[in-house]
């Protein structure tokens, strides 16, 4: 029996995958029916206790929820793009300006390990409510992983290559195109993957603690009502969003990670 379960046959793998989903769903359903409705909602549910899955489906038809999702995505995209546009070029420039890199790297490391959530109260008290303060929060969450990892790539650029390029009088442009950018890009992509996860945290945190909006607002409203089915549906939606974004970033990173493999 155990040997069968551990075998690599395709049907066994598929069956365990389906079993895993069904088992999880069954546990959720059971907990939802037996717990206080103030604490837990079932997955599918019945007339008395509506389930999270049905709410999730009804979200799609509801223009208010569609608007909330779009506003969350707009916040994420704006903050993340800004972090990308500032972080990656800055990191690559540091690959070329060695003195500046040496001067700044310790401080970038410190900011990288500082939990950026701690800055939310400052953003709130200086900039107040509105769209751009929230963008700033997402930016802060995403920026330092990108910068730190790109800088890591900048460090990995072999000085010999730059020397050879210099002694053959390579133009500045071809040094960038053939050495600096190819060396830093795989590291930047690692940073981008880390930043994706952190920016999502920043997005929800900004929506909770600054002016409430988007998916964060749905969760907050549901927790005050309290409407567990709505809350679990929104959390599930955020989880799905997170998985999709992380998978995309991972795929991108893997596509270019072969470059990094050259010198370990």
């Amino acid at each position, binding site marked *: 029996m155990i040997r069968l379960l*551990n075998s690599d046959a395709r049907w066994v793998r598929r069956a365990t*995958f389906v079993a895993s989903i069904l088992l999880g769903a069954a546990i959720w359903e059971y907990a939802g029916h037996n717990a206080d409705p103030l604490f837990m909602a079932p997955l599918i549910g019945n007339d008395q206790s509506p389930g999270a899955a049905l709410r999730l489906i009804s979200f799609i038809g509801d223009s208010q929820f569609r608007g909330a999702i779009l506003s969350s995505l707009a916040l994420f995209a704006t903050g993340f793009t800004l972090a990308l546009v500032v972080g990656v070029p800055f990191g690559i420039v540091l690959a070329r300006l060695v003195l500046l890199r040496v001067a700044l790297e310790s401080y970038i490391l410190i900011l990288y390990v500082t*939990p950026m959530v701690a800055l939310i109260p400052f953003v709130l008290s200086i900039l107040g409510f509105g769209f751009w303060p929230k963008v700033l929060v997402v930016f802060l969450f995403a920026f330092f992983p990108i910068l730190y990892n790109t800088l890591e790539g900048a460090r990995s650029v072999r000085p010999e290559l730059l020397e050879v390029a210099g002694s053959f009088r390579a133009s500045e442009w071809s040094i960038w195109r053939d050495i600096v950018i190819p060396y830093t890009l795989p590291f930047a992509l*690692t940073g981008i993957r880390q930043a994706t996860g952190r920016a999502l945290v920043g997005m*929800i945190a900004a929506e909770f603690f600054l002016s409430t909006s988007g998916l964060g607002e749905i969760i907050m409203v*549901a*927790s005050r009502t309290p409407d567990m089915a709505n809350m679990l549906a929104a*959390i599930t939606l955020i989880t799905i969003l997170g998985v999709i974004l992380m998978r995309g970033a991972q795929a991108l*990173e893997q596509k270019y990670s072969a470059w990094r493999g050259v010198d370990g």
Partner: protein
Amino acid sequence: MNTQATDVAADMTVTNRWSNAFAGPDVWVKILAGLVILAAWQVIVGAFAPRFVAKPLGIAAAFPAVVTDRAFLAAVASTLGAVLQGLFIAMVTGVIVGVAMGRVKVFDRLLNLYVNGFYAMPMVAVLPLFATWFGYESNARMATIVFAAFFSIVINARDGARSVPPEYLEVCKAYRAKRRHVWFDITLHSSLPYLVAGFRLASGRALVGAVIAEFFVSLEGVGMYILAHARSFQHNEAVVGVLALAAFGLFLEGVMNWVMRRFLPWARRD
């Protein structure tokens, strides 16, 4: 799965460069750059921002009073104690689950979906749920910390247990090694670098989880200290709280590096 492995590889190469970050021949350049940054901060904020915004001189003036303040020290102890305790719980349970997933395929197939899903989920989203389940008290913070830390440890422990070179296991089999030797001397041992990488990831996430939980459930701690002082426009004092968090982050990072260099030198790549 591969991404995690590259993470560990990157982790190991970072390890010795990291120690150069605060020492070495360039230390004067770094100090000078730091002074320039502080001066720029002081001048720019002084010129353009409202008066209550933190400035380096203001922070320096507030620093002695804050770090000798009983309430501040209690807040730091409360937060960091909770983080360490939560990390310990997550480490023990996460390693058990992760190693089981790495070595037993059924567990892996049953749990993989959930582990990856919860790992990718932004942990802030569950705060209202945890606040409802565990009440607006320190249990909710502990739950958030464990939740934030657990899944990154599981994923790394799983990849570590998978990375055991098959030759070692074959040799074990050939010499009819006892099962506990296979588990503890081979599997656990060769996944140690992965566990360190997982712990490093988890400690950062745990710190974020603790602070954010304090914001949400208004719990005594560094996060609440920062929030309360920022709200009452005492930004200089609040920045000292941020510095405490950064120092703790750096401390954990430093401990990880020391562990890697002292006990796991065989795992280094360069």
